[in-house]
Structures are given as C-alpha cells and as structure tokens.
C-alpha cells in the first residue's frame, strides 16, 4: 500500500491562534480518508493549506511520492488535487455543462490563436471537452440538467455538480469539504453510492464530514482533529472507541 498524499508536520497559525499544529497524516491510494472533528478543529484550514488557499507556516506535502508545491490554487489543481467547497461555489450563471467544461481547463491547451483560427486540434479538443463533461454529468447523475443554470439546480444537484466539476480536472485526490452538509437522508444515501463509485473507479478521496454515520460507513481510515491537533487516526471502528475522541466530542468526564 503506497501513500498517495503524505502531510508532514503541517503547521498554520493565524495571529495568536494555532489553527494547525504538527499535522502528519498519510492517505493511501484508493482510500476514502475521513477528516473529522468538532467545529473549529481545523479541518477546513487543513483543506485550505493543502489546496493552496493559505500558505502553511511549517511542514510539507508529498503527492504521489513527489513534493507538492503549494504555491497557488491552480498549481495544486494541476498537480492533481481537486476540491469542493463547504459553502458551494459553482459558477452560478453558467449552465451545469459549462461548469464541468471549465473543470477541463487545466487538462486542455487551446489558446487564443487556436480559438480564433478554430484549428483542427482546437475543434477536436472542444469536442473531447464536451464529451467528457457530458459523461461526468451522467456519472454524478444529473445528465438531464446539463442546460440548467447552476444556481437554479436543487441543492443536492449543486453538490453533485461541484463534484463533477472537480472530477473534470482528472484529480488523483478528490478533496470534499462537507459534501453531505444540508442534505436529507435520501440525498446522503445517493451521495454515499456516488463516492463509493468514485473510489471504485480509482480516485482517492479526502473527506471532511460532520455526518458521523456517513463517515463511519464510508471511510477506510479516519483522522480526528481537535483544536488544530490530530488526536486520533485509524479505521473508523477503532477511532469511534478512542477515549480522546469521545472526550473531544462529548466533553471530559465530570470529576
């Protein structure tokens, strides 16, 4: 089992607040890796450091054995990490199809000259972008919505569209920030099926989630953050019984 992503001693401080302290974790290829913890534990900060939104103060990442240069968000996407956002960030006035087509940007080349002259290679590339985008909309289960504007999609479909857009960048690691937030039980169940399918098709997933049932049923490994520190890591069943985790979630024993 080789690690797809290794985080080594990641530290991030906002003024006096130590948001992340010495986070070291390793995500195995083909796993769904859950990152859980109470509100404010540093999960999203970790995401933002990993995807280039914040610069880490300390530590480094290895993606696929190579050092990941977290200099900008687009460099991280090009390296093979695609993310979704806790508060959905779609291109709202573009159609579902166009949203996914934008995701193909980083894996395609056509420039200004190609676009103006409509060269054969540009036309072929455009066709491939279209086909891939259609395929991905179908893959996440919203094929019928291709011409609907992103902001008029139902909430659950917006979440799916965000996943489709991220998948369009052909990521090695798909990083999902609370994909089930605000979903009802049915939507969560279909989301679970989708994530399992993505894993089966070979994409590793890093998942931040509050829905403990979803995390426990879906993840191969789980890490628990609390006050910016990793307090537990392991298979879900073991983490669930961990004393530190129980304390973090439920509070300490009354002395």
């Amino acid at each position, binding site marked *: 089992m080789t690690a797809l992503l290794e985080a080594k001693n990641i530290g991030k401080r906002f003024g006096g607040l130590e948001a992340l302290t010495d986070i070291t974790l390793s995500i195995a290829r083909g796993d769904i890796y859950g990152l859980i913890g109470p509100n404010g534990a540093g999960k999203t900060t970790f995401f933002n450091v990993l995807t*280039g939104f914040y610069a880490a103060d300390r530590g480094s990442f290895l993606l696929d054995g190579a050092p990941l240069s977290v200099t900008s968000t687009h460099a991280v996407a090009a390296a093979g990490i695609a993310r979704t956002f806790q508060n959905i960030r779609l*291109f709202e*006035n573009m159609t579902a199809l*166009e949203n996914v087509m934008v995701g193909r940007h980083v894996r395609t080349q056509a*420039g*200004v000259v190609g*676009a103006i002259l409509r060269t054969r290679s540009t036309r072929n590339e455009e066709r491939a972008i279209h086909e891939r985008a259609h395929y991905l909309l179908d893959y996440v289960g919203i094929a019928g919505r291709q011409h609907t504007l992103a902001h008029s999609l139902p909430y659950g479909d917006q979440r799916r569209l965000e996943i489709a857009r991220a998948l369009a*960048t052909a990521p090695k690691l798909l990083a999902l920030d609370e994909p089930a937030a605000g979903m009802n039980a049915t939507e969560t169940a279909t989301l679970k099926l989708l994530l399992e399918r993505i894993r089966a098709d070979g994409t590793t997933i890093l998942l931040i989630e509050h829905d403990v049932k979803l995390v426990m049923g879906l993840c191969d490994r789980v890490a628990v953050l609390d006050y910016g520190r990793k307090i537990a890591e392991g298979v879900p069943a073991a983490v669930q019984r961990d004393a530190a985790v129980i304390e973090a979630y439920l509070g300490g024993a009354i002395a």
Partner: protein
Amino acid sequence: MTSAGFSRLKEHPVALWAGVALIAVALLVLPFALAAVGTAWVRIMNLAILFALLSLGLNIVVGYAGLLDLGYIAFYGVGAYTYALLASPQFNIHLPFWIILPIGALVACFFGVLLGVPTLKLRGDYLAIVTLGFGEIVRIFFNNLSQPVNITNGPQGISRIDPFRLGGFSFNQSETFAGLTFSGPVKYYYLLLLVLLAVIVINVRLQDSRIGRAWQAIREDEVAAGAMGINTAHVKLLAFAMGASFGGVAGGIFAAIQGFISPESFVLVESIMVLSMVVLGGMGNIWGVIVGALLLSFVPEILRYTVDPLQRLLFGKSFVEPEVIRMLLFGLALMLMMLFRPAGLWPSKVRQRELTES
C-alpha cells in the same frame, strides 16, 4: 435578434441567407446613401465603426472577464501614436500601414500587460481607480514627451500623418470606378467594415472557447476558478492584452483617417464614452455592444444638426447649445437605462441573469 429567434432562423437556411444578403447589400450601399445626405455623415459613420471596434475590445476586458477598465482609451492612443510616429514627417519614417498596424497592436498589447500585472489582485472599484490613473498617465506622457527629446510633439500633436496606401492605391483620394465615385471616407468605410467583421468573428470565437469559458469563470467566482486549475493571473492578463491590441489597431486606423492626432483625443471622457457604449448596449453581448457604439456615436451628431435649427424654428433664436443638450440627454439616457434596462439595451443572457436574479 434573440437567440430563440436565431435558432428558428437556423431551421430556415433560405430565410437566414436572405437576411444575411440583405444586411450585406444594405451595408455596401450605406456609404452612398450617407454621402447623398452629406460627406460628413460618412466620416461620422467611420468614427462610429471605430468606436464599435473599441467597444468590442473593451467588451473582452469588461464584458467577458469582468475587469472594470476606466483607462481603455490609452490603448487607442498608444495605437494612434505608434502609427503617427511610424508614418509621418515627425521622424520622417513612412512605413506601410500593414506593417504598422500589427506593430501598434503589439505595442498596445504590451501596455495592456503593463497595466495588467500590477492590478492582478485588484477588483471592482480599486481596479477602476488604477486603470483610470493609467489612462491619465498615458495621456500626460503624450502631452509632455516633447522634451528633452521631441517624440510626441506635445500638445500640438502630430500632423500630416500618412493615409493608408497600398502600392499606388491611396485611401484618401477619390476614385471613379464603374461610374461610381469612391471618396476617401467611403474607401475607409469599406476597410473599417472588413476590420469590424474580423473583430466580430474573433470576439464570437473567443467567447465560445476554452479561454472564453475561463474568463466567464473568473468573472463568476475567481476563487473557485483558481481551485479548478485556471491560472487566474494568466487569464486576466490575456484579457487585458487582447482588449488592448484591439484598441491599438483601432487607434492606428484613427490616426490614418484623421491625418492628425493630439493628446486631446485620448482624454478620460473618451474612456467613459467607450465604457458607456459597452454598458448601454449590453455588456458581454457583441451585437448589443455594437448597437451601443453606433447609438452613442450617431445620436450626438444628429443632435448637433437638429438642436439649433429646431430652436430657431420654435423660438426664433437659439437658447441652448447642442453640446449642452447632448450631455443632458446622455445623462438622462444613462439614468433611464439603469432604471429600466440595467443589463443594457441588448444584454447578453448571462449578464441579464446576473443583474436580475441575484
């Protein structure tokens, strides 16, 4: 034409082509019709097309990429001065226009990047202020680069600029062909029409391309666009550079048509005028932008010729100068627009959605 109307037309190729042919014939005959009213109107038409070119260039920056640029006229000026310096007695250089226009586009493009690089992190109002300053700086340079070495000839401007020439064929001389007299302005009109057509094609193709989608994405949500792997800095610079080079080409043609340029032609009000054309017509929609440019070019001229006679007819003497009426109506028109058609006369569908539903 709405896109629904357009797709209905697409199902009737005969009707579509008949329509295209009709418009083409009308455009070909137009300068003669205008010349019958007065040669001045052909010149006004030419200036209107130049402004349409400018508006389409600015539309890339403002309409597609969503970057508010209040100094766009600077690129027009850079193109015009490039042409003037390379085809006038100023330095006694007389290069042919088909060499200078690409040079002018490149120089303007360079200035576009020059403006783009330091403003990459700015948005909205802040970007507007910096671009406004940039436009003024460029104009002040034109005004003052007459010493210690005289480059731009300062406020006097550069005169006796070469017209477009192709072998023995000069664009500023009248010629009779098949019983029809083609005056200088009429010849320029046809040339401008060709350039406009090319610029329209370029705009349409850019909009519907990988780059066009990237522009739209950064306009919608720059953060998400970055996370999807779009190099936002690169894509923004591309918008500035593309928009600027259109401005540069238009400026070169302007210099050749006028034969004289001075810093006066590249003042802030002109930038605002071009931006108004884009906004009035409908940001992001090529046809709307062209309509906006034609309207704002023609209406003032029509007023110039009607306000005085009308007042004399009604009151026996003239109270208000056309220029005053012009600004008054202009302000009124913009206010009415903001109230009733905030997305423009002929808005792009996307912009309309942004402005009405959010």
